[in-house]
């Protein structure tokens, strides 16, 4: 009989419980069991960053984490960025600066950027690149993403005081 473990976690402020095989990856828990399908799977070996979510405020790759490793944790996924449907300033910036094309990698980028902007109020280009080096986009060539982040920084900071 396959061993199963109870996992309790909070995602986007909502508590969840699930009984899972220990081998279930976190992204498969989020997508398959909890129905949070905005987090995408691109490589399942921790290189592309499409599956990036926040755990305790830190950007992590949910494809190379086991669900059981997130037991007790508080997570945030792309669905948590705009709970009422209103785009988050980072999302607004992506739309205005054309920071996406196919949009498959985008949720992962958004979560990495969310963490960056939590930690740094005014990151320079090098800091932005460092934060996004682990997110692969095959469409945009990154220029519009860099511009989107600059715009998001401006939006989050607000007008100069």
């Amino acid at each position, binding site marked *: 009989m396959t061993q199963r473990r109870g996992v309790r976690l909070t995602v986007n402020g909502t508590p969840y419980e699930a009984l899972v095989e220990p081998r279930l990856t976190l992204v498969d828990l989020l997508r398959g069991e909890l129905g949070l399908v905005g987090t995408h799977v691109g490589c399942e070996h921790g290189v592309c960053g499409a599956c990036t979510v926040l755990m305790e405020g830190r950007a992590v790759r949910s494809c190379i984490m086991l669900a059981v490793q997130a037991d007790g944790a508080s997570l945030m996924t792309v669905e948590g960025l705009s709970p009422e449907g209103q785009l988050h300033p980072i999302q607004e910036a992506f739309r205005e600066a054309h920071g996406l094309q196919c949009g498959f990698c985008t949720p992962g980028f958004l979560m990495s950027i969310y963490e960056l902007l939590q930690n740094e109020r005014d990151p320079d280009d090098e800091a932005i690149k460092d934060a996004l080096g682990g997110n692969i986009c095959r*469409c945009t060539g990154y220029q519009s993403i860099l511009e989107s982040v600059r715009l998001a920084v401006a939006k989050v900071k607000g007008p100069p005081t």
Partner: protein
Amino acid sequence: MTLELPKSPDDLPVSSPKWVGKDVKRVEDPLLLTGRAEFVDNVVLPGMLHCAILRSPYAHARIVSVDTSAAEALPGVVATVTGADAERWARPSFTAPEGWGTHCLAVDKARFVGEPVAALAATSRYLAEDALELIEVEYEPLPVVSDPMASIASDSPLLFEDKGTNVMYQRVFTWGDVDEAFEAADRVISDSFRWHRVGANPLETFGVVSEWDPVAEAITCRGSFQSPGYFALGRSATFRLPPNKVRLISQPHGGSFGGKGGGRGTDITIMLSRKAGGRPVKWTEDRMEYLVGGGSQAWDRFYEASLAVKNDGTVTGLKVKLIDDLGATAEGFGATGATKPMASFTGCYAIPVAQYDLTLVATNKLPASPYRGMGPPPHNFVLEQLMDIAARELGIDPGEIRRRNYIPPDRFPYTIPSGNEYDSGEYEAALDTVLEMGDYARLREEQAAARAEGRHVGIGLVSTIEPGVFDWNAYGVIGQKSIGVPEGVTISLDVRGKIVARVGFALEGQGQYTLAAQLLADYFGVELDDVQVIALDTLSAPPHFGPGGSRLGVALTGAVLGASHRLRDKLVRVASHLMEAKQEDVELFDGVLRVKGVAGAEMKLWQVVGAMLMRTDLLPPDVDPNPQETYVWTAPGRTQPDEQGRAKSYLTAANACHLVVVEVDPDTGQVDILKYFIADDCGTRLNPATVEGMVQGGVAQGVGAALLEEYVYDDEGQLLTSTFMDYLLPTIHEVPMTEKRPLVTPSPFTPLGAKGAGESAIHTTPAAIMCAINDALSPLGVRATEVPATPNRLWKLIRDASDG
């Protein structure tokens, strides 16, 4: 009937276009940004099973037996399929060239590592992968050939024994008196080049959910299909079903770049669903499956090429010999990538004669697929290297030699030796633009200063053509015989004057729904939000192709404008009847139907549509009450290939000129891209921001091809790059942020003057980077001719030269 469509945005029925030609925020984005787009892996259907595929660990092996009984005994495993099922239910895949295909599951032997051998459907993907380990296959390994040169040799193991050869195709196309040109040349510039396999790698792999209806004997598949209509035809042929029994629903997909693949996986899930009594079966290709067995690989090429040149730099002839390794079968249509270069064979240059010696070879490697650009990127790399070598030998600046050979603006439309016709172009203007952007003279000074310090700085300057709006005739010589690629749109107005456009393709990233909305909003004088674009399944949609071949922007523009014309004509007939005016006196302008010259005599869209739908008693007798019209656009004037393969194939010829500065570290072999300037001319820009995104995305893929990406096989046909740890996609650190400037030379042949614009940089960037690297290396007396120019290769090249 082919309609006369507006030649320019100024011809739209609006005082001044509010959306077309503007940087418009994409209508697709809110859905994508919030993670709500229904990518295929999000699809869950009642009773759905999960497929896993067992793949050959051998590059070439006879399959002695396949035993699935232990897997079937595992609780939760519902169905298994093997080559025997494929042989019973399905035909071998259609291929180009014809007759080099196999079934979706290996029947008698496996021909490449990763070829599907058996598959099963279980209640979860985890369980399915467990069960795969219980399938027992007895293989009898056969000799492997993974090198195309060895494959051509008479003693090579054969992929298809009945063919008696591994050469899938061999032909020499001669356009003009090439021998004479080379005899009369002052110099002949020749070299050999190697372009290693690269490929698409969209961030989303292929996925499908298939249902077999056992009662109706019909198929429904949801998947990330790039070309749904054609993919449906393929399934229809494979399963010997009439086309109206095959319904494909294309989900939004996470990129494609031509390399989505998915034929075998779809067919396998269809058979599994059939065995499972019609339960839906999902297969999500994982990344390792994609790399080893998907639509992931393209362009595995050996070139020998020559230019005939006069001492003044005039190029008088071009000869290219290509051996292209297509892998185990021709199922992936990789061969089209070897024929497409004929659409822009001589690049931007007025080279009068040319020859193409083309050999397509089978080896025990993954069948090659299309990839963005569809073949010319390696060809352009070869041609542009030869131009640079000629410039260096003749002591002419690389910009100057190109300038002397450009097709001048007054010679368009211009037919190149290989038969295609270029619509328009201002190549010298693009060159001058990029030289000015980069301050070329100063760059050369800076380079000289760097060299004096012992640094290896190089400048690459390259001009290319992006053939746009593909037609099948471009691939006619390898068996794609038809002409015409339809793109249909159905548009309708509702009682509030809002618009729905129905298309046959799903979201893929190019912003085409936004384009349709822009066109319709301007045509009918409404807001962008008043237009809704939806994708229909293949049995509901008008004939369509979808994204591909640098075509959809132009084709969709034609389709939308055609349907709009038809709907406008209908509205005019109704409105003129209602307003008791002559039809010819009523026009649609700025969103109202108005009587010309009569102030205040007008009807709003919703009034006309309201009458059509709710007051049919008021309608003229010859108008049906349906405010909906369809138009299917295809490129006009395409021709059959002649005896030398010459055809008018791609409708438009966009042009780009790239200027790039690199520095090579001779001790580490690393290449640093210091500056990058682009002048890009794709005719009328319908949404300039999305065009810029297409260009920059192509730069990234070009950087990957030039410096990072490579599929490596060993002698036993084992893929050594089966993860993203080894197949290296560029990240934000490797891709240069480029400076771009548009030029606009409208196409005289297309609606609104737009040209195909999705591929320009992938055609140009690899060539530009390689030219820059070779400029940097020129003081060392070496030249890189192998792509990608990896650190190890560059270091070895430099070291071997200094040793010698």
